[in-house]
């Protein structure tokens, strides 16, 4: 506690898009309560802090740090370690920090391929000398350095100890506010906090629990990409052949995407009891593919199944859109895989 006696709040972005910060602000007038309760100790998005300010804090000075963004480079990791050291409670906030999210999709390719795409083969880039950013560059004034770009994107808990995880890309404002209320309750009224390591601000079971669409037995002949089909407004999207990750995704968002006819993207990560969201999704929908029959010739059977499976354009990118860093294999084999 500092001069004004208020607990210290920090929010930091590592490899992220900034959506998490917007989502925090989307708790509307409740942000005033946050301001009332907390003292902002570090929040680069809304206030000017320097790293040296944080470094100057005593260890554990920050009461709660909402860390969003994945660990893409050495700077992200250094900041994670610094904030871990300075925070009593470190929260992996949002899908990037929790499980890699969109940045970790680059684990489906290689560092080399990423650089080639970004610096050479990008339609908006003109780089005839094929210049790449360097970790260290000598200039007249001395040495300039850039962070190391990691080969593999990691989640926050893969570099430091994390107390809580709030899933979502971004986490839904009502859930954020609910979490903040618990924290405020703990800090101001001594109410208990959830056990360390918990996933908070979300449900425990799969999204279908919250989804109001009518669910029947599933027999799917093939899959459709969203542009190929006009979904029935009341029926389960998966049954209609639209890939909906809801079956293998943690509830908590209120099934926002399916309610407007878009298959769940899976941003809340796997429900309790599932280790690898993509593998489970894969297993479930392959199981209910209603093609091929045990009395068929093996060749015909394989061909039919292959045909149906090929209606899924990009299984890795689809099933692991948010959870690549937290998946069992975490990345593609070096130098191989789809670009």
């Amino acid at each position, binding site marked *: 506690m500092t001069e004004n006696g208020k607990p210290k709040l920090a929010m930091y972005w590592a490899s992220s898009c900034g959506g998490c910060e917007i989502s925090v602000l989307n708790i509307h007038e409740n942000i005033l309560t946050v301001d009332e309760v907390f003292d902002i100790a570090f929040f680069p998005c809304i206030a000017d802090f320097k790293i040296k300010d944080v470094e100057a804090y005593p260890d554990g000075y920050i009461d709660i740090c909402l860390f969003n963004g994945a660990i893409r480079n050495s700077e992200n990791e250094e900041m994670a370690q610094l904030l871990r050291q300075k925070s009593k409670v470190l929260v992996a906030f949002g899908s990037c920090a929790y499980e890699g999210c969109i940045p970790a999709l680059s684990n489906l390719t290689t560092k080399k391929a990423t650089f080639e795409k970004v610096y050479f083969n990008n339609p908006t880039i003109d780089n005839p000398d094929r210049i790449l950013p360097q970790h260290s560059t000598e200039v007249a004034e001395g040495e300039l350095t850039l962070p*190391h770009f990691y080969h593999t994107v990691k989640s926050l808990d893969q570099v430091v100890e994390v107390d809580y995880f709030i899933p979502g890309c971004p986490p839904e404002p009502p859930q954020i506010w609910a979490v903040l209320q618990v924290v405020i309750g703990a800090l101001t009224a001594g109410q208990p906090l959830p056990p360390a390591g918990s996933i908070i601000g979300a449900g425990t079971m799969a999204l279908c629990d919250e989804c109001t669409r009518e669910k029947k037995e599933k027999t799917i002949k093939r899959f459709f990409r969203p542009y190929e089909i006009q979904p029935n407004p009341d029926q389960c999207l998966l049954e209609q052949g639209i890939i909906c990750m809801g079956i293998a995704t943690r509830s908590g968002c209120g099934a926002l995407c399916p309610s407007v006819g878009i298959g769940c993207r899976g941003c809340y990560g796997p429900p309790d009891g599932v280790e690898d969201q993509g593998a489970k999704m894969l297993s479930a929908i392959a199981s209910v593919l209603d093609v091929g029959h045990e009395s068929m010739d093996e060749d015909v059977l394989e061909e039919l199944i292959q045909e149906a499976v090929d209606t899924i354009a990009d299984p890795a990118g689809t*099933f692991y859109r948010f959870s690549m860093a937290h998946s069992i294999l975490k990345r593609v084999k070096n130098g191989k895989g789809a670009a």
Partner: protein
Amino acid sequence: MSDHFEPVIVGFLCNWCSYRAADLAGTARIKYAPNLRPIRVMCSGRVDPQFVLQALRSGADGVLIAGCHPGECHYVNGNIKALRRFTLLRKTLEQWGIEQERVQLLWASASEGTVLAAAVNRMTEDLRALGPLRWGEKVLGDNGAAHLVVEEV
């Protein structure tokens, strides 16, 4: 460890056909590559893709899923579900750069000890040719922080 590479294969064998095929291969004293480490499951339909991924993650060079022939599954069609999952998993693993030979699906009935033994031999040869996978060290071990990429690209 010497330079000689002996692949490690995890085998998920169904209780009714392929596990018995392996039993029969033994009973008939058919000698085959000792590289298979069998794990018994009741049906190839029990094989969760997470098992396959975890096997690769935990150091296996290859995974063999073996079940009854289509139409002969002791649970009617669990093997068809295994085939559907395998087909989708194979497509996904391809995106991971994992060679097709590393994860294979085999049909071996309880009387096909020779089929199972031959498949293990063939797979062992395939994997010897491909070299070790060693996901933990070789794929995840390099975090790319040690050097910047200019010389690589």
